[in-house]
């Protein structure tokens, strides 16, 4: 075990590393500048549990209805040997698919062990890669891996990879609707980055087997329900930009060693769970340990990181907690109270604060004057 791995293990404590999936890996790109997050993610810390144990549970939950709807739609798309899906693929990839074979990689001869399943995926995918065979193959539930912070993460396999001639296409099935040809842009963006995770993992798999990673297309097929009904429609999504973003963040995490070095050894976020799984570690101790790793809170964290309530509380005196734009408009001054004292002329501007102070004083004068004028 390397030094860094040992350090990360110590930070995480007794819990096993939390498995990653496309969603959690996609989320790594949300606030790339945050050291706290980089370390927690690289160490595989169970952030929802940590957040709860430190007194600030994450405000995320998933509705049973949403899950049921997602599963029902996926089942429909895959029914009858993926009949609906094949119809879309013929359409979207503009290529004749006389027939397609279907390989389910969910379990291999009764074995559901991850390494066994991954080996099987690898074997099948690389064997067919570049075979040039005309018939397409659908790989359902391929088990892929991706290196995250120096650790191999198995990706929960909720995708289909489609091979036609020399190309693999990642197919992402989502249950949000495309109404009159338009879907919620935020959801499409989230789907794009998650698909990019799969594209990357597929490419790594091919590369490790000495194949050309570019056999995996950087256009993915997004399948979602049309209008208000269940009938699926497909769209091609170019994920080149997402791939770049993702690669950048993954290589940052690969440099985690340098990052961990900066902090004193011995920091542990162990929850000290008792035999019933209840954390016994004092919230204040956890908070003190967490605070050693600098955070970079902004309100966007509220939608993307389980630590958000903790970090928001910690950042409550900062201008960034009011929004990145607020901080910028206040001349980049870090604390609310400093900004207001500069605005009132109570505080003398420090080095580099002169422009900000002048701006704030003008703003304060204009606000006061206009409020007074209105009575």
């Amino acid at each position, binding site marked *: 075990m390397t030094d860094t791995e040992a350090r990360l293990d110590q930070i995480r404590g007794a819990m096993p590393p939390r498995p990653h999936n496309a969603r959690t890996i996609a989320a790594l790109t949300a606030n790339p500048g945050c050291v706290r997050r980089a370390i927690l993610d690289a160490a595989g810390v169970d952030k929802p549990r940590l957040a709860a144990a430190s007194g600030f549970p994450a405000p995320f939950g998933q509705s*049973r209805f949403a899950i049921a709807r997602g599963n029902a739609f996926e089942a429909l798309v895959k029914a009858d040997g993926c009949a609906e899906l094949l119809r879309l693929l013929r359409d979207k990839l503009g290529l004749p698919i006389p027939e397609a074979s279907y390989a389910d990689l969910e379990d291999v001869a009764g074995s559901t062990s991850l390494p066994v399943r991954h080996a099987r995926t690898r074997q099948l995918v690389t064997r067919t890669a570049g075979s040039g065979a005309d018939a397409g193959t659908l790989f359902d539930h391929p088990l892929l891996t991706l290196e995250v912070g120096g650790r191999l993460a198995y990706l929960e396999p909720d995708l289909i990879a489609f091979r036609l001639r020399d190309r693999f296409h990642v197919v992402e099935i989502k249950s*949000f609707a495309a109404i009159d040809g338009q879907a919620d842009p935020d959801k499409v963006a989230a789907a794009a980055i998650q698909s990019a995770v799969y594209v990357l993992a597929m490419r790594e798999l091919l590369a490790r087997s000495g194949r050309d990673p570019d056999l995996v297309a950087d256009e993915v097929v997004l399948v979602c329900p049309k209008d*208000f009904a269940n009938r699926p429609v497909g769209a091609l999504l170019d994920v080149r930009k997402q791939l770049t973003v993702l690669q950048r963040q993954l290589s940052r995490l690969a440099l985690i060693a340098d990052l961990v070095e900066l902090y004193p050894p011995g920091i542990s976020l162990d929850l000290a769970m008792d035999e019933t799984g209840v954390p016994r570690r004092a919230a204040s101790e956890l908070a003190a340990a967490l605070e050693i790793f600098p955070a970079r809170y902004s*309100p966007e964290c509220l939608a993307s990181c389980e630590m958000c309530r903790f970090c928001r509380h910690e950042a409550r005196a900062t201008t960034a907690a009011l929004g990145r734009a607020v901080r910028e408009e206040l001349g980049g001054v870090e604390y609310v109270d400093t900004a207001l004292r500069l605005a009132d002329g109570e505080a003398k501007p420090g080095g580099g604060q002169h422009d900000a102070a002048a701006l704030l004083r003008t703003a304060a004068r204009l606000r006061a004057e206009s409020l007074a004028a209105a009575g």
Partner: protein
Amino acid sequence: MSTLTALARAQARMADVAQRVATVRHVHIGTRPMVLVPLALAGEANAPLAALVGDDPATPRLFVVSQPRNRDERFAFAAELASVIVPYVEGFAATTEQVPAERGETRARSLDAPQLVLPNRAGIAFTRLLGRSTRFRRPDGDHPVDPAVPVLGRWLSFLTERAEHPGSCLMLAATEALSLHWASGQSELEDLNLATLLAWIDPPPGVGGAAAAAVGEDPLASPPAGPVTDPGFDNDVLAPLIDAFARTTEAARSESGASAELGHAAVRRARSALERALTGQLLPTWQLVWRALELLRELPAGDHVARRWEADRDAFTGYAAYLRDGGLPQPRRDGAVAAARRLNWLERAQASFAAQRAFDDPLVMAEYRMTGEAFAGQVVAADPGRVSEGAKRRVLRPWITVATADPVLVMPGTVVTSPARRGQKAQVISVTAAVAPGPVHPVMLEAGNGASGPALVALELSGGMGRGLVAPPGSVPEPGERVCYSTLTADYLPIAEFPPPEQTPWTHGGPPAPYEPDDEDAAEDWS
């Protein structure tokens, strides 16, 4: 986000209560608004779950879909909603006045118009889809629906489209209307939550904004304003109730005689349990929306509010007439020309709405003073009788000099106007730094050196002074008067020229076929 609003947010954080960012009200609040709080089933494109609706805070009507995936129940829900919303909306079309139109003619304008208020933008988006999924339906044919359903769909489509127009008030999102007037001590993102936003603006007595907002964020204490429900509520409360209802309904169907009676009683109990739970989720938001309206109503209306409402009344009158004449439902998607026309219109409307607010409200004007597009100060010198040789004749062109502490960025030659004398133009002659005491060095201020202290602005006035060579008293600002000038214009800019729809260039898809909804539209799945 401007520096002034950012400062107001910082002040709100420090004072632990929201701060005003407007001194007057910039939205019209109707005499009889109708509030609609919709809830949707999670994960579905547009599956209504429940709604509270009505124009009286004391008596909301509750509509519930007890089996949200059942198509018939959805249309029954739409019909129920229509029974409240359609008569409310169309009632306003009954009374009109005649107003002058072009070429000395007159036209009708409804005396008043409907105003539908939702908790937030997401509620408007849901309503838009509800309009989209109902407006093509037909009362006859293979999939007949209640005749009121497509009418509801058309009205909801009209209102939600209108809600995108800056300054229009036929449909409002409470969070947006509040944010136009107050800055909270939280972020813009958190302001999307009506409960926390109102907590900052109007915290309970003795409670600070931050503490009140924390309560507003707790889904148990303050159910989300929808249309998305709290996942915890879905899993722990709603799902078991929906299952129980389905089970009892199923059981009652297979019973007969006395046990059928019992079965029906069980169905009724299951249904009212569901209704109680959903009311519990809806009622707090219902009350918050009405509280928001109350707070807004307390502010005095800005000068332009009535004019914008007239435009809303015109739009409403026009659409009511269109529907009366059997007009087709709105197409599925805008054609290229319609979309371009709309975009252009929206840009102009946005600029004009911003300018109108600045004219009505010194606190909004201050934003422009901050950026140098406006300046305010005191008149220090005036030559009201100045006459200049025009091309044809001598004309009255008074000069005034304004001393201001604002960062002036307008360049000589620019024409500015004052909200106090809108008919009068003022051309900037020079901008000089006011260096006192000692001899005055007229230094031209360079653009970009913002807050560099007091300046003297010399202006030449024209217009708004009658036709003679002597300015009537009061038409020229006198020394000592406080004035404000800006480059803003609150009038609509001329409409950009667009090709008529039939001449749409092929690059934009060629002339669109007028949208004729067909049987398929009427029969479209809603599952």
